[in-house]
């Protein structure tokens, strides 16, 4: 069971309060009807499946109920960072340097 830092509650809390919500920074297009079949397919189905740091979404579903973003290393299962929804994607190189 992981410990996860909720950026809204500003507390590090047991995983049981959270739910995973897929890859982060995949933005729903403004005008889906303008997209080609290939573009739409990529938006729907194509994911990075990273080995190592992975940008992903979690929801503090049994806490403050907010969706937020995280960088988690899929090899070590370690969270490198969590940040609020809408904040820019952090720079991976500086993050890893900080570790």
């Amino acid at each position, binding site marked *: *069971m*992981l*410990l996860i830092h909720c950026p809204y509650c500003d507390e590090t809390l*047991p995983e049981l309060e959270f*739910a995973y*919500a897929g890859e982060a920074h995949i*933005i*729903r297009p403004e*005008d*889906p*009807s303008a*997209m080609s*079949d290939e573009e*739409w*397919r990529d938006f*729907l189905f194509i994911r990075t499946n990273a080995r190592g740091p992975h940008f992903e*979404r979690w*929801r503090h*579903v049994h806490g403050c*109920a*907010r*969706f937020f973003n995280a960088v988690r290393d899929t090899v*070590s*299962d370690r969270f490198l960072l969590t940040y609020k*929804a*809408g904040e820019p994607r952090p720079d991976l190189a500086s993050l890893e340097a900080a570790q």
Partner: protein
Amino acid sequence: MSQYRIPGKGRVDHAETVRFAFDGREFTGLRGDTVASALLAHGVHLMGRSFKYHRPRGPVTADSAEPNALIGTSRGAGRFEPNTRATVQELRAGLMCESQNRLGSLSFDIGAVNDALHPLLPAGFYYKTFMWPRSFWDKLYEPVIRRAAGLGRAPSEVDPDRYASRYLHTDLLVVGAGPSGLMAALEAARAGARVTLVDENPEMGGSLLSDPGIEIGGQPAWDWLDGVLVELESLGVRLMNRTTAIGYYHQNMIGLCEKLTDHLDEIPQNAPRERMWRVRAARVVLAQGALEKPLVFHGNDRPGVMLAGAAQTYLHRYGVKVGDRAVIVTSHDSAWYAAFDLAEAGTKIVAIVDTRDAPREDLRAEARVRGIEVLSGHTVTGTRGRLRISSVTVNPVEAGRVGDPRMIHCDCLLMSGGWTPSLHLFSHTKGSLQWDEDSRTFLPGRMTEDCHIAGAGRGLWGYAEALVDGAKAGAEAATALGRAAGAKTLAVAHDRPGTGESHKELPTDRKSSRVRAFIDFQNDVTAKDIRLAVREGMRSIEHVKRYTTNGMATDQGKMSNMNGLMIASDAVGKPPPQVGLTTFRPPYTPTSFGAFAGYHRGATFEVTRRTPIDAWAEANGAVFEPVSLWRRAWYFPQGGEDMEAAVARECRATRASVGIFDASTLGKIEVAGPDAVEFMNRIYTNPWTKLAPGRCRYGVLLGEDGYIRDDGVIGRLGPDLFHVTTTTGGAPRVLNMMEDYLQTEWPDLDVWLTSTTEQWATVALNGPKAREVLAGLVEGCDISAEAFPHMSVAECRVAGFPARLFRLSFTGELGFEINVPARHGLALWEALMQAGEPHGITAYGTETMHVLRAEKGFIIVGQDTDGTVTPEDAGLGWAIGKAKPDFVGKRSLARPDLVAPGRKQLVGLLTEDGAVKLEEGAQIVLDPDQPKPMKMIGHVTSSYHSATLGRSIAMALIEGGRDREGETVHVPMPEGVVRAKITSTAFYDPDGDRLKL
């Protein structure tokens, strides 16, 4: 007094005897004994038989790593447990024990014929022998193997014990209360940290309990121990004995299993047998010590052959001599001390056989003083004795050549192949191991967790080193926790430092085919098996393990892994670190299922959600079915009715007069705010802008992939307020999806979502008499057909309670759904039952609800859809707001695959013989005579007997189904092929006239 018990010695209570039985024979032991120590006190070494060869076995350890002395224990009715280690099970009054793996008696086991046949049963023999002929498998091989397989006998009764669980948060968890662990806990606690100290033994102290001659800080070891425990307690340290750290998980989460009652004569009422602790520790100190290795030689498994350290423990902790005439065989200094202690207690040490050419001079001098013969540079080439060792054969080794044998009579042989740091928990963390060439063992390498390893667990030896290292780990942990600490040193007198060598098999003069040198005692794996595996092509240690089953016994390789590795490394011709070690996995020692289940059994196995009307249903004989976490009334049998009869009656009554149904489980979401209608337009397929307050609409929810996710009727209560209903199982999912879009895609919308599923109790009233039943109870709303047409909603009072009243129908009859605050749900139900009495109002359950809706062709999401069904496929194309620029899933409805011809579409199916009911899930083909595998064009999704129509009805998803209306399809079933005609799904009242009442 038992023959081998030394009066007054040990930590057992000599004043209190405890009676128990072993294989039907009565024995007495002392309070504080284990089953093994009590039997050894009577001179009983033979405690079990091995798994494969049924060889006689006795205890080889005095701890939880025991591979041999596995027994069945019975603590009263239902309380039988197989494979209990006799070396761990504490005596309790009336304990009944039995030996295992025997056919016949323990001393005469006919299964031991396997032992004589051992040349025919090498490693991998299962894979080779039982391959052919194929037809022999079912009738001969499998039944025979099944009878022979399995360790011990499985309990046959329901476990009557309770099991508990706890969460625990602590600054520092120390695993192992030996000298290192005690010092770590002490230093950190003195620095002010919240400390938890756990140990799997009944008593804290670890190796100190077996070494009372040590002096620490000027005190005898046991006095010092008492003082430390008092201080730890006074510092508020949580001391947990009989508690095993079974697994080490991410971010310092450690699982502990605490044994609470197995050792008690009387169990307090409601006391749990075991408690699982889920501990979150800021820091962890692993002070688990080291495990002694056996030496590998012919006949090393005979009863009476045991680890030297174990003999020392039986002596000092239990006051038991393991024999009168002992031979020591060792490659490590530690066994010499055991020999001296046993000699002191009166055991004749016939010889100390050391495999090393030049053991330490001070040890040899001490042996000389005691008159013990020392044979250095020797090997052991065999043992004798049928059920107990009677002699050992030793030979000198010079320049690799084994010299002439010499037979020495003895009644026990105490061996030590050196010590392996206990790194199981550390390995759970995926911490890396480092090969240490000096000690020829693996030591902890890179850490992945906030963890310290102290003492023998990282290869240190001797009390002085262990104490200092423990104190250092405790101080480091405290410092990491932000508390000032400095480790102190302690003076140790009479310390017992030591070193040793690691071996593969000991050299022998026997023909290699005649050597039975065991590595994994429990699984009967010999050195020869390992070499055979390598010869047959296994190169990875993981393959060797699986081929030979080495390390797969209940001790998980505690005894066997390192010896197996040494031999495999020799056979492969690569150094040990290149051959590698197999992965240790939790749990550290065998753990009961009960401990894992905790409170989740019986009535609290999982959450059972109950509606406010559940009590009425139960009192009125409802049969319940689980629907997601809810239990829902399935049908209400009367006067001995079976399900079919009850459902037929409920259906007829509802269509003829009026039925009442508890719909409280429906998900409900309040959508409120100035942008509510915009949000609804974006989320649901339907258009909402023009839906007037006071009206409702059937809504369809898609995933972004265009497939149906949920549906439900949605009422507009005001310009900015919608009352959304979802399916019972879909409620949390739908709310989560809505929140997701709202929070992350459309955070600009001023709209908020609140789950009101449980705020409201919901009662559905259906049937031509529904309005008559309801009318007298409604205040503040005209529910006439004109004023309150189909698909209306109003806030009013019903039966005196504030209510949200819907006119809608999931049955095809005139229908209402009344929502009242949940606390009034039962009162509303009873008021409606009373008002309906003149009309013969009939309570119906979910099965009748399903039949009635199927007669109308209404879908159930998740039954008639499966996550690959579009609204068009389901015949719900009319529910799509085609003029809307966008909604969730809209773009996907134009995906090439979703507009391709030949998609499966939902249709009705009527069997040619109306008495035949199709099976849900049955596959459908066009031509039943085509060769197999047949082309399947769809499957049955819903199928019922319709009392209304007097025949069976079904719905199915069929390729291009709507264009095939009128065609005959075939459903091949084991009993024969069923013919059915494709129809529309509206079986009953297709024009909906009955809704217009």
